[in-house]
Structures are given as structure tokens and as C-alpha cells.
């Protein structure tokens, strides 16, 4: 059978050696940007400046940043509604993302999409989707187009542990394998789909093996370590790009905040959250390595922190001072 042996969950230390100090610096800054951006978004939501649903990515930063470090120019990303981190990782502008959150004309979707629906043709980011599981077929379709055009690109298709139970996921798996489509299925297993823990929703909780009956190889990855993330995604991309078809990565990760802003959080204990926050934080991990293994000085770290804070504050100011869309925009973009 084509399914490869399950990779062992590895700690960051093992593969960390291949990571240069510059890699760590970049990873630190990129992850911190997502963290601070999300904290700010949470704050603006609390002030009523952001409305509707707002799903924060805090805790999961290493997943998208590690993946981005392994991607090549032209590879695409598609995800669900917990999408701010994915957008920032692809290099989309924090100002445009924040302005979309506040529903302003200069947001990525001109204020029409909001938190869950942003796109960037330039950065190959295909959204931003609100219907759980729908992006899995869409990402498979992007991969279909890649193979059709033979452009060498791979579609990274992200979805959650909860989404992994939707039927169209398996319909997509079958087609992707049948037609050897260049797609990497990126399952972000943060242990919960809303208030339902994975073991209350899934008969088999090893999501990396969900492609087994189609012969799609998969592995579990420590999603709290950016180094393991980069390595695993590099492996998966190589597999998909070389014409062998789809690959599944199940990232073991954790979201610190509630599912969305209104989450009574009665389904997990504070201790569980603190365990991750205090002992397994992906950003603390990289900061520690920078300082203890690479001798980077506290001042240099502080300089990065400040740069990130400035970027986020600028984005927040921009997002509050830009105008709302012109009323005539109500009628534009419905069809071409």
C-alpha cells in the first residue's frame, strides 16, 4: 500500500539545527506579526469597530509561517474563515486586512467580505471561506488547474479538524488521488471544532490517515514548532510537485482564544489553555532559541517587537480612519 509509515511527532529541537539564525529571525517576526495583529483585532472587536464573526489565529502561528517558508513562488493557499494568519503569512498587507475587518473601502475586499472573505490574486491567496469544508473542493480545483496548465504549482488547502468530517473532503481526496493532483491538504487540528473536541466528533482521531483508503500518504506534524512545520511542508510539496499526487499533513496545534469572539469556553479547562500558552508557545520557543542558542541580544529582539507593534498600530489606525465604502458599491461586483 502506498501509505507511508506515520511520521513520529518530533520536537523542534531535532530539526532546529537546519534552521539558520536568519530563518529563526524571520520566523519570529512573521509569527509575532500574526500574534499582535490578532490581539489588536480582538481589541477592535471589543470596541465594536469590527463586527460579525471574528476567528482569531492566536496559538497556531507556526503552522502558516513554517509552511510559507517551504513554499515556492506560485504555490497557492486557500483556507476557511480563520484566515488572518494565512493572509499575513503570504505577505498580504496588514493595513488592507485590518481595513477589511473594520469594513472600509480600502480593505482587501473593499469592505464587502469582512474577516472571513478576503482574497489576493497577487499573493495567490484564494480566500477566506465561511462554509466549513467547502474550501477543500475548491483547493482541489486549484490543483486541477495547476496540473492542467502544468505550471508546477501546488495548492495548499487548509481546513480544520472539525471540517475533516465533511463529505466533500473525501470526494475531493478521491479525485485528487485518482488524477494525481498537486495539492497538499493541511489539516489544522487544534483539538476542537467550536465547542466539540475531536474525540467527540471523529471516530478515528488520527486525521493524517484519513486518506489511507485512497492511498494518499499522510503524517502528523508538531504544529507548535516552526522548524518541523517547514520540513514537513517541504516534504509534502516535493511529493505533490513531482507528480505523485496529494499529500496530507495533520498539524497538531492549539487555538488559545475562543472559537470566535462569543465563545463561553466551557468545553475546555483554563489549565489546558495555559499548558499550551506557557509551555508550548510557538513564539516563545523561537525567541528562546534566538537568545540561548544564537546569542541574539535582548535589544535585537526588542527591535523586532517594536517593528511589529508599529506595523500593527499603523494598520489599526489606517483601518479606523479610512472611509466606509461608497454607497454605490452596494451594486457593484455582483456580476462582471
Amino acid at each position, binding site marked *: 500500500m502506498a501509505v507511508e509509515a506515520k511520521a513520529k511527532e518530533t520536537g523542534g529541537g531535532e530539526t532546529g539545527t537546519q534552521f539558520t539564525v536568519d530563518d529563526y529571525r524571520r520566523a519570529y517576526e512573521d509569527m509575532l506579526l500574526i500574534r499582535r495583529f490578532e*490581539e489588536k483585532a480582538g*481589541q477592535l*472587536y*471589543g*470596541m*465594536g*469597530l469590527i*463586527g*460579525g*464573526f471574528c476567528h482569531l489565529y492566536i496559538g497556531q502561528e507556526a503552522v502558516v509561517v513554517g509552511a510559507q517558508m517551504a513554499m515556492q513562488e506560485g504555490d497557492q493557499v486557500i483556507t476557511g474563515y480563520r484566515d488572518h494568519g494565512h493572509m499575513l503569512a503570504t505577505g498580504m498587507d496588514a493595513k488592507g486586512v485590518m481595513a*477589511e475587518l*473594520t*469594513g*472600509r*473601502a480600502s480593505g482587501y*475586499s473593499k*469592505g*464587502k*467580505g*469582512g*474577516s*472571513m*472573505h478576503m482574497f489576493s490574486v497577487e499573493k495567490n491567496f484564494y480566500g477566506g471561506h*465561511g*462554509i*466549513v*469544508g467547502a474550501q477543500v473542493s475548491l483547493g482541489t480545483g486549484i490543483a486541477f488547474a495547476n496540473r492542467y496548465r502544468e505550471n508546477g504549482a501546488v495548492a495548499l488547502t487548509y481546513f480544520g479538524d*472539525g*471540517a475533516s*468530517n*465533511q*463529505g466533500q473532503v473525501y470526494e475531493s481526496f478521491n479525485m485528487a488521488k485518482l488524477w494525481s493532483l498537486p495539492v497538499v491538504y493541511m489539516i489544522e487540528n487544534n483539538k476542537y*471544532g*467550536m*465547542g*466539540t473536541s475531536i474525540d*467527540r*466528533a*471523529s471516530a478515528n482521531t488520527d486525521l493524517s490517515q484519513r486518506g489511507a483508503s485512497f492511498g494518499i500518504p499522510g503524517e502528523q506534524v508538531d504544529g507548535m514548532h516552526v522548524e518541523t512545520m517547514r520540513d514537513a511542508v517541504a516534504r509534502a510539496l516535493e511529493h505533490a510537485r513531482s507528480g505523485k499526487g496529494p499529500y496530507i499533513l495533520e498539524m497538531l496545534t492549539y487555538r*488559545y*482564544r*475562543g472559537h470566535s*469572539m*462569543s*465563545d*463561553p*469556553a*466551557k*468545553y475546555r479547562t*483554563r489549565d489546558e489553555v495555559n499548558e499550551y*500558552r506557557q509551555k508550548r508557545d510557538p513564539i516563545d520557543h523561537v525567541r528562546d532559541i534566538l537568545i540561548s542558542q544564537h546569542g541574539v541580544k535582548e535589544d535585537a529582539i526588542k527591535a523586532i517587537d517594536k517593528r511589529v507593534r508599529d506595523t500593527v498600530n499603523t494598520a489599526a489606525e489606517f483601518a*479606523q480612519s479610512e*472611509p*466606509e*465604502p461608497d*454607497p454605490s*458599491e*452596494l*451594486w457593484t461586483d*455582483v456580476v462582471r
Partner: protein
Amino acid sequence: MPTEILMPALSPTMEEGKLAKWLKSVGDNVAPGDVIAEIETDKATMEVEAVDEGTLGKILVEEGTEGVPVNAPIAVLLGEGESESDIGAAAAPTPEKAPASESSAPAAAADGPKPTGSLSADAPRPPAAPRSGPAPAEMPDDQPAEPDVPAGTEMKQITVREALRDAMAEEMRADGDVFLMGEEVAEYQGAYKVSQGLLEEFGARRVVDTPITEHGFAGLGVGAAMAGLKPIVEFMTFNFAMQAIDQIINSAAKTHYMSGGFIKSQIVFRGPNGAAARVAAQHSQDFASWYAHVPGHRVIQPYSAMDAKGLLKAAIRDPNPVIFLENEILYGQTFEVPAEMDFVLPIGKAKVEKTGRDVTIVSFGIGMTYAMKAAAELAQMGIDAEVVNLRTIRPLDIDTVIKSVQKTNRCVTVEEAFPTCSISSEIGYQLMEKAFDFLDAPVLRVTGKDVPMPYAANLEKLALPSVAEVIDAVKAVTYRT
């Protein structure tokens, strides 16, 4: 400078909440992420996490305080080296008043609808309308609308949310074949807290949390119904029922007919439908006309708690598939229902919520909030509107609408859905077919705009119907300017 901690908005529809409990005291150190307080909204109790670092300098809102508006300062946080004496200096960091915050909730959510019947109380007599027969002064008093409950029935005030829960609980007590299934219905108590307490009372056998797999569990529900059970399938919202539409239409609605009447599917598909607040295109759609298009099932869209209670009980007992379209914004609104337990309303019967002589406004579900407010404002202008609440969309009680139009000779329909092939289209057509001679003006419709729901606060407001649009339409059909 000390930072004020503000009452946070914790959900798309929250405007105020109760400060239930302080978990930190004055003098305590606070780090970002620390839980500092618990807040109760109509939906749930939630924890408030600190965003900034510091020492809790002062508590401005004591625990137990109800109705604390979003953005009101609730405490003051002192930074490094600051003391209580600095507090006076803390200018209230009034969040920059963005245009967004003024219009963040749809107009309908702003204040609850007036209790039934109170609207026409002191309306001035309408002046003679140009073409509506005898002068109002000479008109006989209207027949009062047929009451839902006999005079003297003891009533109580409950929210639509509670009415739905009570309806399910009562029917589950009465019939062991009734069970509830859906995402987050059991342990989480419902994503919108509609199934609160049901798991405790009925246990996990009858209150079933499903994986996120709408097509699968809708089909499973239909199969269970074919086998004789009476499932209530909750969709977290009807937007997600689109994943399951094949089973709802092709399996549930058609099987009775296809089997020559031998297989029934007694199943209720229910959940919030339509726009909530700022949740954008994929999460804001009214599916009434989609379902109403299809023969083989019933489609209900309740407005008040009375509708919700009486019709959900009827839906659970009905031997057919029933699509029961609720609304998130209405969940928290309070109405009267009979205090007595077994209150059931007939499916397929509209209700005249307010009698009037000059124009008939027909609506349903949340559309009723615009209709009722418009009727109240029209009364001030001397236009006496009759408001018909359809309650059931399929079968449509066109007779009640016709009866009203025979009296008023004018009709305006109101709904939040898109205009094309809407319920309004259907009513307009049926009136033309069956009451053409009674119409003194074309039937006008007030609907959501023909665009996907935009996210931006100003655009969302424009996309939804408004009370002003209803008033304009009424003026047009009554030839007022």
C-alpha cells in the same frame, strides 16, 4: 496613563450585558490573557480576558450590574509606576466613533417590537383616502383580529429563544420518538443557546451532538424518520443547510409522494435563517422562497414567541417534513405566550397582527419588525395599516391576505430576502389572480436588495429593507405624497 477597561462586545448582536462577576480585585496584577471578569449576555456567560498589562486600580461597575452598554468603562488598569491618584487623569478613551458603530446592527435589532395590539391604540383617524370608498369617520369599527388564545388566558413574557426551547421540551416529554440532533446542540447548549437545558433533561440518547457533516446527518435524520422516529434536525444556521439540500428536498420532501403515500418522514429541520449582523454574504440569506418552491413539505417562519412556541409544537407533530426558519435577531426578543403548557397553533394560517383599513402590509419572520414599526409610524401620519403575519409560507394562507385586501384595496409586502422569485412575487401574483378587482393600486414589495449581503456596516444597512422603505411603499399605494 491609566487605561480604562471597556465593556467588550462579545458577539455580533450584543449591545449590552450583565457584569456577572469580577475575578480580579483592586490591587491585583493583570497580565494579557488573564480572565478578569465574567459577563452574561442573553446567549451565554463569557469570560473577559485582559488585553493590557497592569494593576487593577479601580472597579467602575460593580458585579451584578445589568444592562451595561458595550464600550462603557468597567474598570481602570494602572500601568507601571501609576497609582490610584492617577485615575482621575484617565481620559475616557472613547473609541474613535467610527461610522461602523452607529449602524452595526440592522435597524430591526435596535429596539424590540412593540407588544402585539398596542400599535393602533391612539392612532389618529385617517383622513379620507382618495379612492378607498366611504370616509373613515363613517366606517364601521374593524373586526378585531381573531385571537390566538381565548380572552382571559393567563399570559407570560418569554423570549423567542425560550419559546423554541419550551416547544421542543414539551414535545419531547410527550413523545419518546422525538429527538434533537445537530452541531453543538447538546453539551454546548446550542450555538445560539436554543437547546439550553435539553441535554440535562433528556440525556445524550435524545439530544445528539453531531460532527460537522450536514449532508450526512440530514440524510441520517430522514432515514430515522422513514423508520418511524420524529427527528428535530437543527442546522447551526440555514446557510449550512445548503450542504444538505439534496437530502432535504430529494429525500425528505419527495418520498411520501414517490412511495404512493406509504413512507412518511415526520421530521423538522430548524435553525436560524436570514441575516444576523455583519456576518457577510455566506452567512446572511433568507431561504424562505427556496424551500417554499418545493411541494412535499411545509415551510414556517415564526415572528413572535407565540408563533415560535405554537408553530414549533405543531411542526413536531405534523406528519410531514417541516422547514422551520428562525431568526437570530429575534431570538432575544420578548413576547407574550400563554402560561399554560400545551399551546399549539395551526400550520397554514396567517395572523392579522394589527387591524387597519387603508392598506394591507404582508410580512413574516423578522420582516414583521419593519412592518409593525412602519404601521406605528403610518398611524401618526393618519394612515391605518393592517398587518398580516403569514406565519406559514407553505401552504400560504392567501385567503387571509385576500380578505384583508378586499377591505383595504392595497397591499405592500415586506421580506428580507432577494426580490426575484420571492415570497412577495408569489403574493403579488396570487393577488392579481384572485383579487384583481379589489386592488386600487399595484402590489408593491419591500425586500432585501438584489445583491449578496455586504459586510461593511453602511452597505449592510442599505442592503436590508428599512422602515422608511415600507412607509414609502405604503404612501405610493395609497397615493399620498
